[in-house]
């Protein structure tokens, strides 16, 4: 019979070992994913082009409608909220600044990332997880095909391209939403609003947003792949891992957002 202290340290130790193993596994996936996406093509093993295009269509093109609708609404909401405050000080024209800056620096990237995490991150986890439980991943390995190269590299490449692209799109639609509301309901002259937006927006703002979006794309792919490859059992574990991948990627997206925003605050 082990004493209470022994049992306590034993359970802490087991936890730590398990967490350590998870971290090791996650870093192995990150390492392999970057190797097979960027290093091995140089050595003559290119990323699967057709799979990448299909991922681009699924993760990027098919997300356009939902990204458009959500950013339009958020643009409008933002303009309304800004107007509510700014009309008290008689500075309604600054609605343009507020909408433009907060969309490009923050809301465009983060909204896009959350939509993509929900649509594609979960799909990655479900796809890889069900392949794992059906021994398809094992089959790939025995055929000498690296599963990370086959499954993750096209997804990583697709999200690295499509998250910034969708973000640019979300920025434009969001700003347009603000423009729409300001010029109709609030009654700002379209030309004034346009001028104000152009003056307020710096290339720097847009660029920092895109850097964030790029990083979010990596986070979402890796989390989805990690959860997928962790599946050992059957269908119900695939479901659990899929849900976990959405929660984890949204959480990590916010963590990285905090990190980058702090970084940009001090260094730009």
């Amino acid at each position, binding site marked *: 019979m082990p004493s209470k202290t022994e049992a306590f340290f034993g359970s802490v130790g087991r936890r730590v070992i398990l967490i350590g193993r998870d971290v090791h596994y996650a870093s192995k996936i990150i390492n392999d994913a970057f190797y097979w996406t960027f290093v091995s093509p140089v050595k003559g093993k290119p990323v699967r082009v057709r799979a990448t295009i299909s991922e681009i269509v699924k993760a990027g093109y098919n997300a356009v409608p939902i990204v458009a609708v959500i950013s339009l609404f958020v643009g409008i909401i933002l303009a309304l909220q800004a107007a509510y405050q700014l009309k008290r000080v008689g500075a309604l024209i600054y609605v343009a600044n507020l909408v433009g800056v907060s969309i490009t620096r923050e809301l465009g990237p983060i909204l896009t990332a959350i939509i993509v995490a929900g649509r594609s991150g979960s799909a990655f986890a479900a796809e890889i997880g069900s392949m794992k439980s059906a021994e*398809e991943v094992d089959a790939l390995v025995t055929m000498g095909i690296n599963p990370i190269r086959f499954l993750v590299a096209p997804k990583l490449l697709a999200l690295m391209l499509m998250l910034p692209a969708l973000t640019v799109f979300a920025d434009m639609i969001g700003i347009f939403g603000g423009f729409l509301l300001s010029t109709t309901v609030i009654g700002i002259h379209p030309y004034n609003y346009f001028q104000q937006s152009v003056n307020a927006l710096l290339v720097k703002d847009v660029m920092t947003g895109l850097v964030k979006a790029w990083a979010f794309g990596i986070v979402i792919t890796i989390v989805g792949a990690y959860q997928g490859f962790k599946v050992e059992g059957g269908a119900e574990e695939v479901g659990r891992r899929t849900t976990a991948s959405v929660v984890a990627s949204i959480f990590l997206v916010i963590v990285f957002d905090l990190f980058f925003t702090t970084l940009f605050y001090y260094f730009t």
Partner: protein
Amino acid sequence: MEKAIEVIGLRSHYGQSEILKGVSLTVPRGKTSVILGGSGCGKSTLLKHLIGLLRPTEGNIAINGRDIAVMGEEELNEVRRKMGVLFQGAALLNSMTVAENVALPIREHARLNESTVMIMVRMKLDLVGLSGFENFYPSQLSGGMKKRAGLARAIALDPELLFFDEPSAGLDPVTAAGLDDLIIKLRNVFGITIVVVTHELASVFTIADYVIMLDAGKVIFSGILDDLRNSQNERVRMFLERRPETKTYSPDDYFRFIVGD
């Protein structure tokens, strides 16, 4: 007897529990060897070691004289190029057609133009009796057809070694017998070394040249079919005569079992 595979003192763990407890066996070249044993005795685990999917805790696995237990991934891939595996559920990639599935290992390992690849794919599909199903998706095939497609993919690169995990599981007797015929044909015509994991006695007696029997992570029999029939080992006899487990716990043992000690 020339050895295709030689396993010495293989021990394997999932976490804390030991699944294979010092397994030693040889697989003769150009023959069909069957790994037989009850559910949960570690057959699939042993197979995963033979194809390099799992790394042993201890022991050697020599394939064509080279120990794969200590090989790096690159070297292992070279060995795997000469192996074909048919998994229990066929493990076809669901996002690809039958033809693309069969073409997968060919495209990965050989630089061939598209028409040559398609000719090879058609030849393999013809061999397993699936010509005309090139553009079907796995979800559109029956269980038996999936296995055949999986087999076509396993033999796509003309392997020297072919592994089957429970080829007849979940198939009706006629379809299962058809698959057995294919296995015999592959050995006779192409001289492939075949390793089949199964617990179907009927198919053992049709396909096997050599039998290895596992029980609770240990080899309890290995030899030719006639020796298996004449074996006096109690566990082997129980398996062959389909006798149920009769061992009962003494009250003391039972208490210990419940308490989990």
